[in-house]
């Protein structure tokens, strides 16, 4: 009795500490870039004719003009930049440059937005000042808004010249928006020309050069590299300590594995698991390099997975941002709010936690860590019911932090482990808050316990709420089941009911719905089920993946006939 009270108090202290740490996450920085403004060079098009600028290291150079003025956008408005170095930039600089030169009846402008200012929901920067009469701004990766004399230019014809010289005639709509430009066309740089009766305005919109696989990319990867190194060190330390412990307890050292090799020559069995890995790798690539690879982006789809929205190269937006920043969401227009909840509901009902098992990049990374342990044969940590119950409580705290932190002035992003991965891989330099430390925990615990973070994931919990109306279901045939517990042992989410349920709610025996809000539909239970038809994954009532004894046995039965033991002996 007394012990349980102490446990409760300890847990409450832990909960409060976790909340406090999450609140101050931005201050507990894991990695801080000193000078995030250090850029790569800019692409230059037609630099002999058009006005453009480049920057390399510290210096900003202007091309193609003589009497040009360089402007920078600051929080105080438009400012003239005197020097040609970063150090001369004002401290409240917002990240947009423009250069302007008027020559008779031709006005030439060059503009660029530095990559971090194309921020997630921030509207692209616009000067809207008298000095710059004609301006374009790149909004939401989908459209350009054209401004003329600080007002949107509605229903007018604009000529767009692409980097390779082709010209496009496009018309703005009533809001002054131009759509129909491919993302990769934008990425290569383009210029807009607008002609009034006696004046021609040209604006050259420049985007930074491709940053993947450059030294700059490597420097963006630095914090993630550090995280991996620290995690590997933690794992090595754990294995070493265990070896010491086993030596002390006089247990066989071979238990920790590491150098052990598998003595069973296994057959390669292609199946559901293979499909899952292919989908996971594909979605990982698309959610990190998607827009770069395909040139399109679906910014209206807010996929509820932990794909960091600070990575601007991903194929879709991530729903995690608005859910953890509900205050931001409610300040948006109601159409935005409706479309967000619409896509979220459709995702939740159609796919549910299938997204966790197949799509989520954070889940993929944990699965990779798990596979690494499998190939090293290091002992894991097997949780039992009681530990899973504790994790369930931690999940509730995470949920409160996830939904509530925005209202009290914090940001979940500083706490979120996903922020360390996908922006870095896409080459975005991002200073990390507490999230970097959390990522180390995710990697180390994911190494020893499969999909550890998924057990406390707040987003996954919200997705799982709709499991009753979700189209994917897990069905159990209680009669065929021998209750061997292999499914429970295999389940990364520790769902026990799948093994203990013997009768459905309506007394059915043959097709009991054993889907729970925790189920991520990874299919591990079906794969490890040795009884024909005892477990099945269904979609709209149709069996997609079915347990099969012969298939099960094929995974284990070695290819070769009997061979006496020939491994090396450990003393």
């Amino acid at each position, binding site marked *: 009795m007394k012990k349980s009270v102490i446990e409760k108090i300890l847990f409450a202290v832990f909960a409060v500490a976790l909340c406090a740490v999450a609140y101050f996450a931005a201050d507990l920085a894991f990695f801080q870039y000193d000078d995030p403004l250090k850029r790569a060079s800019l692409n230059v098009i037609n630099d002999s004719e058009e006005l453009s600028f480049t920057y390399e290291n510290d210096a900003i150079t202007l091309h193609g003009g003589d009497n040009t003025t360089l402007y920078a956008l600051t929080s105080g408005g438009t400012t003239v930049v005197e020097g040609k170095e970063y150090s001369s930039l004002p401290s409240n600089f917002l990240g947009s440059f423009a250069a302007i030169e008027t020559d008779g009846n031709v006005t030439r402008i060059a503009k660029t937005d530095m990559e971090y200012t194309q921020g997630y929901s921030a509207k692209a920067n616009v000067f809207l000042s008298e000095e710059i009469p004609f301006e374009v701004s790149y909004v939401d990766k989908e459209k350009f808004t054209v401004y003329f004399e600080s007002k949107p230019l509605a229903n007018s014809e604009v000529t767009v010249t692409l980097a390779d010289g082709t010209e496009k005639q496009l018309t703005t709509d009533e809001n002054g928006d131009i759509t129909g430009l491919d993302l990769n066309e934008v990425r290569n740089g383009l210029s807009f020309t607008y002609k009034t009766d006696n004046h021609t305005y040209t604006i050259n919109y420049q985007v930074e050069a491709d940053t993947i696989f450059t030294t700059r990319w490597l420097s963006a990867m630095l914090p993630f590299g550090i995280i991996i190194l620290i995690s590997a060190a933690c794992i090595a330390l754990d294995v070493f300590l265990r070896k010491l412990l086993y030596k002390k307890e006089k247990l066989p050292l071979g*238990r920790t594995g590491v150098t052990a090799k598998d003595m069973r020559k296994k057959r390669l069995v292609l199946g559901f698991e293979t499909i899952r890995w292919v989908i996971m790798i594909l979605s990982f690539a698309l959610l990190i390099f998607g827009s770069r690879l395909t040139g399109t982006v679906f910014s209206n789809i807010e996929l509820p997975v932990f794909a960091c929205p600070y990575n601007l190269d991903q194929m879709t937006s991530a729903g995690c941002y608005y859910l953890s920043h509900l205050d931001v969401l409610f300040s948006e227009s109601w159409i935005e709010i409706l479309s967000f909840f619409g896509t979220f509901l459709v995702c939740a009902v159609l796919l549910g936690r299938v997204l966790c098992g197949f799509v989520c990049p954070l889940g993929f990374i944990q699965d990779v860590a798990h596979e690494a342990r499998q190939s090293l044969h290091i002992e894991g940590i097997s949780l039992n019911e009681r530990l899973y119950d504790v994790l369930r409580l931690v999940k509730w705290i995470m949920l409160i932090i996830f939904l509530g932190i925005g209202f009290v002035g914090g940001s979940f992003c500083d706490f979120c482990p996903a922020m360390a991965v996908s922006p870095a891989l896409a080459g975005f330099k991002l200073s990390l808050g507490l999230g970097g430390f959390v990522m180390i925990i995710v990697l180390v615990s994911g190494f020893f316990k499969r999909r550890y973070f998924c057990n406390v994931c707040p987003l996954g919990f919200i997705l799982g709420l709709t499991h009753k109306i979700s189209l994917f279901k897990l069905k159990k045939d209680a009669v065929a089941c021998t209750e061997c517990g292999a499914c429970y042992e295999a389940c990364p989410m520790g769902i026990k009911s799948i093994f203990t349920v013997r009768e459905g709610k309506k007394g059915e025996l043959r097709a009991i719905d054993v889907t729970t809000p925790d189920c991520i539909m990874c299919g591990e239970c079906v794969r490890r089920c040795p009884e024909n038809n005892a477990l099945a994954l269904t979609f709209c009532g149709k069996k997609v993946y079915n347990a099969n004894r012969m298939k099960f046995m094929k995974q284990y039965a070695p290819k070769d006939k009997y061979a006496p033991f020939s491994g090396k002996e450990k003393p």
Partner: protein
Amino acid sequence: MSEYKRQGTPEERRRTRFLNKSSATAVKYLRKIDELPHKPQTLDPFLDVLRHIFVDMNDAVKPENTPTVGTYCVMVPPELIYAAGAMPVKLCGGSYTAFNVGDDIAPRDVCPLVKAIMGFESIGAMPVYQKCSLMAVPITCDCKKKLAGYLGERRPTVTLHVPTGRDRDEDMEHYVRELYQFSDELTKVTGNQLSYERLSWACGLTAAAQYELSRFIKLRRKAPLVIKGTHYLAALNALSYTHISIWTQYMHALCNELESKIRRGEMASKENRPRILITGSPLVFPNFKLPLLIEEMGGALVADETCMGERGAYDPPAIVDQSTDGIMRALANKSTRPCTCPTFTDNKRRIYRIMQMLEDYKVQGVIYHVLRGCLVYDYEYQVMEEEMGKLGIPIIRVESDYNEEDVEQLRIRVEAFIELIKYGKR
């Protein structure tokens, strides 16, 4: 042994008498199995194993210099023993002769299986029993518990405390600890340390056998029957005394022959034979009177749910975690959780299991075999009868002992039961 001379001490004479009698019984039952029609050619190696053990009185069939470990229930995972470099022999006794000896040592109500084991132990004449380096006795029922004590006084013995329930995680963790202790004892016998490499190799061995067994089970589900029930019981009994790699080869050949038989359409029974499932207490060679009777009386013994039959090697370990601890957990899991032994407090899964078998094998009648004194199996008959009643499947409880006096009585009951199924009168 043909010439009889009164010589030696009474002890030695008793020994000789015992060996003569028990080998005579074994020869008789082997002949009966051999003479059953539709015997596949490749069944002979299995019968040779039984002859090797029970008639020629030899040690288990195995590679040279492999120590043997005697095991008494399916809860002892053979993988662990193979991993240590030894081989398991299942020593549950079925000998009438040994039963008679054991009858004098054990109390009246002890089951004949345990009496037979105690008989073998007190005579000390069977090499397969005598050459065991270690005895592993899981504490399943009361008889086995006292047997562990009896053996412990005479031989190096390990007891494995089997949990009485299986749904709680603690039960499983407890059994994992038991297995680690067992593994330590095995290391003392063979000198081989537990390691991932050895365990995974041993799991590969048993997996190969279970792969063949799964093929065999699939073939057995064919209607009409492709192999006689007594034949497959003999094949599975032979596993108890054979190194699993050798048994796998035999099984592989048997499966291949059965497959070609199916292709040629040579089935082992006619369409209209009543299809019977046998469940309950184990049928250990040479106690094969019941399956032989069923087959003699015109029934088709299509399936068995007994622990010396299919159940003995049925459950595969699902190795989820490729590490030493992962395999140990998988072994503990597979040896207790799916086990249908009625010694566990709750055994709904046995009823479900039989319901599934009724469907898979298209069973028309169930014979519930109870060895006299086997309380736990007798307990479950009530529940089984009720469930079978709901499904409309006739069931009969057949109690027998280790002697041949009740054969005629059994014959009448089995015959009546088969007639009942045949003519559809319930």
